[in-house]
């Protein structure tokens, strides 16, 4: 075997005393396409950011191209041959395509002056390799997210890299663009460049990667050749579960398809469209059922939730909740809708506030008289929820930021349950929480539905949807394209429904 291009061993990293990586390792051979997978929070991004000099490691050794790496900034990483395409678009939308591709590496004359004609020409040439022909002088922001993604990749590839890191590169690409990307990746491999490929889409790995590293809870738990493993095996490694156990029983506590669904219609959306990538949403939720919303990232699931909650104004169509149409969050809450958002940190918790204050944030108007908060009632309410949901906190006045992800999530669930909503919209309710908390949260949801309320469940985890939802509405490119009924939904059927192009409804 040759010397590996990259060898990271014993990497430790802690943020504010909490371990994010514990003795993690990663090895990549020259000319290899290597995948890193793991659930949210497994430490993939942290590991990459340590490699590229964004974070400093607490311990461990990094060997790159046979030498100990001293990279301490993204710039140094680029200059020593490691290019990164981050998950979040790291480009500047207001600036031109050329600037975005060449920034920091502009062709110059007389040592300092940018040679714009040559910069434009070079950019055109690089993009042509991706089969993209666009006006490189136009601001990047005027192009679609997919083009922007490809421009980011073009930038990374153009920097004479020996290792290209791609963090979820396909999450916003359509099938054709994914093929273009795969072509580029194979081309890189052919020219001897290694690719570190991070993706949630396991199918992609089997199509494009040579080997895979699995991470869980900040540790590297497995490194395998793709040819010698199976999807189920990888999932088992990621979840830290026994593979036979997964085969044998279901993995969720939601109990989809077992409920009586004679309840009245609670929510109905007809051809609803917003100017936020929701083009046509048809959706019905009855009392006493869980309706799943499935689709790839960017398919419009979250946008559908926002439309229902009155966050985005409808451009066309209608949303009716018990005959009303919420126009903003406050009126949606008053009408009886709760919305547990996808991004717990950015849209959920108020980190500086206590658990108590976070739990009662949405229900405060009901807990106050004449503008004054009735503290006794507040404490009693929070006490009850901490007990019934099993929120692990020292006391209700502990700052919520000190809680674990699962307990934060339970507290946010309590925030909405406290408002006694009749419809709960749950956007990735179990993402980034440990397995135990996940099952507890699912149990809470099940009990809630059993009381005759409705749930709209958005999830990227197919098991959660397949086993939890009574019906699943599938979304694609901002359109609700089909609906599946439980019992009878299988994971395969769902994957097919998501992947299949539904002609006639969703334009290409």
């Amino acid at each position: 075997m040759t010397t590996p291009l990259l060898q990271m061993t014993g990497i430790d990293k802690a943020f504010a005393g909490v371990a994010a990586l514990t003795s993690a390792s990663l090895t990549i051979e020259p000319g290899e396409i290597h995948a890193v997978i793991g659930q949210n929070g497994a430490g993939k991004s942290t590991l990459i950011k340590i490699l590229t000099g964004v974070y400093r490691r607490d311990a461990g050794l990094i060997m790159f191209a046979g030498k100990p790496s001293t990279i301490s900034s993204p710039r140094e990483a680029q200059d020593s041959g490691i290019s990164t395409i981050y998950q979040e678009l790291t480009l500047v939308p207001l600036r031109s395509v050329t600037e975005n591709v060449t920034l920091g590496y502009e062709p110059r004359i007389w040592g300092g002056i940018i040679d714009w004609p040559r910069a434009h020409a070079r950019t055109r040439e690089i993009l042509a390799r991706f089969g993209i022909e666009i006006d490189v002088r136009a601001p990047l922001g005027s192009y679609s997210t997919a083009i922007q993604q490809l421009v980011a990749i073009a930038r990374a590839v153009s920097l004479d890299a020996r290792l290209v890191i791609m963090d979820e590169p396909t999450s916003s690409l359509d099938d054709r663009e994914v093929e273009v990307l795969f072509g580029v990746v194979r081309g890189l491999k052919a020219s001897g460049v290694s690719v570190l490929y991070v993706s949630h889409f396991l199918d992609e790995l089997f199509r494009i990667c040579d080997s895979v590293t699995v991470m869980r809870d900040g540790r590297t738990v497995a490194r395998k050749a793709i040819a010698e493993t199976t999807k189920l095996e990888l999932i088992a490694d990621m979840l830290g579960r026994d593979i036979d156990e997964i085969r044998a029983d279901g993995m969720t506590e939601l109990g989809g398809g077992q409920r009586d669904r004679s309840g009245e219609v609670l929510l109905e959306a007809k051809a609803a469209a917003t100017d936020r990538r929701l083009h046509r949403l048809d959706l019905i939720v009855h009392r006493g059922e869980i309706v799943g919303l499935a689709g790839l990232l960017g398919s419009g699931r979250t946008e559908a939730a926002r439309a229902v909650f009155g966050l985005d104004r409808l451009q066309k169509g209608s949303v009716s909740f018990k005959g009303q149409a919420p126009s903003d969050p406050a009126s949606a809450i008053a009408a009886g809708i709760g919305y547990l958002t996808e991004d717990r940190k950015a849209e959920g918790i108020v980190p500086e506030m206590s658990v108590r204050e976070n739990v009662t944030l949405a229900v405060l108007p009901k807990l106050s008289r004449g503008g004054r908060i009735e503290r006794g009632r507040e404490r009693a309410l929070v006490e009850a929820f901490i007990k019934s949901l099993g929120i692990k906190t020292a006391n209700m006045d502990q700052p919520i930021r000190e809680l674990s992800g699962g307990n934060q999530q339970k507290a946010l669930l309590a925030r909405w349950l406290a408002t006694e909503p009749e419809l709960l919209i749950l956007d990735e309710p179990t993402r980034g929480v440990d397995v135990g908390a996940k099952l507890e949260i699912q149990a809470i949801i099940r009990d809630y539905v059993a009381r005759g309320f409705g749930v709209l469940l958005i999830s990227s985890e197919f098991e959660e949807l397949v086993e939890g939802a009574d019906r699943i509405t599938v979304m694609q490119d901002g359109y609700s394209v089909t609906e599946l009924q439980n019992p009878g939904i299988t994971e395969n059927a769902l994957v097919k429904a998501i992947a299949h192009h539904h002609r006639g409804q969703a334009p290409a």
Partner: protein
Amino acid sequence: MGDATTFDLRRYVRGQAQSNAVWLALMALIAFGLLRYDNFGGAYNIVSFLNYNSMFIVISIGMCFVIMTGGIDLSVGSVAAFTSVVAAYLSPWGIEVALPGGILAGIAFGAVNAFVIILMRVPPFIATLATMLAAKGGALVLSGAQTISVDWGSNFTKLGMEKAFGVVPWTIVLVAIVALAAWFVLERTSLGRTVLAIGGGEDASVLMGLEVDRTKAFVYMLSGACAGIAGVFLASGFGAGQPLEGVGWELSAIASVVVGGTLLTGGLGSVPATVAGALLLGLVFNILNFENGRGTISLSAYWQLVVRGGFLFIVILLQNRVSSARAAEDR
């Protein structure tokens, strides 16, 4: 994530339209002035107008760079006052010493701003507010709270009071050089592009491997240098270092930059449009003076502040429509 992209386009296009709007408004005001007042187009008015506004133009150029990175520099007025005192003290050695000396003093304050903002991670407006105080205090201490008369024997006052080849005042020549250099740096150098990239997305710029900290240090020192030049102009044009001047200059500069179509959130901006913005603001007062002279209105000096604030308000209203994308992004 990518949802904002469609808005960015609209924002950009409108931004472009607006930088043209500055020129249109400038033309319109000039035409108005020419038609309404006899002496408006006269050499005396033009030269004294440009001469007086040279200080504001040069400060606005520095401010433009700071704002393009998404920052702000509130210290420019006090720094100019400080450097005017420095220049006055240096005036016996002539302009060859006083001008570089003043600029260096300005850069020193800019370096302090950069240090506090970049290394101590203090928000720009707090840091520069503090420097504003420090420069003001420094100017008063240095001058003993007196105006410092310059040395009339040296060539120092020529800068502010005489003309190059008897035609154009030296200040205007110098401002033109600064503006051209700034324009060139912004449009044609990696440094200038980095300035814009930082304003467009600081985190993205870091991850793209750009020299974010160094570039930010550059803009604050540039702004300090520009304030330094303005301070030298002040001392040279009025024959004295004036520790109490400079109040509200930062506001004029911000207004000029904003009028020139630079987004307050950074990422978009232009040097010529900023100069046009400064001229436009100056013209408003020029025209008010003419009206005062004709007796159609009679405004005390105090109205200047009110008008200035009102002007900033209107500009913000206009720009708000441009960047209404922010409202849409607000979740």
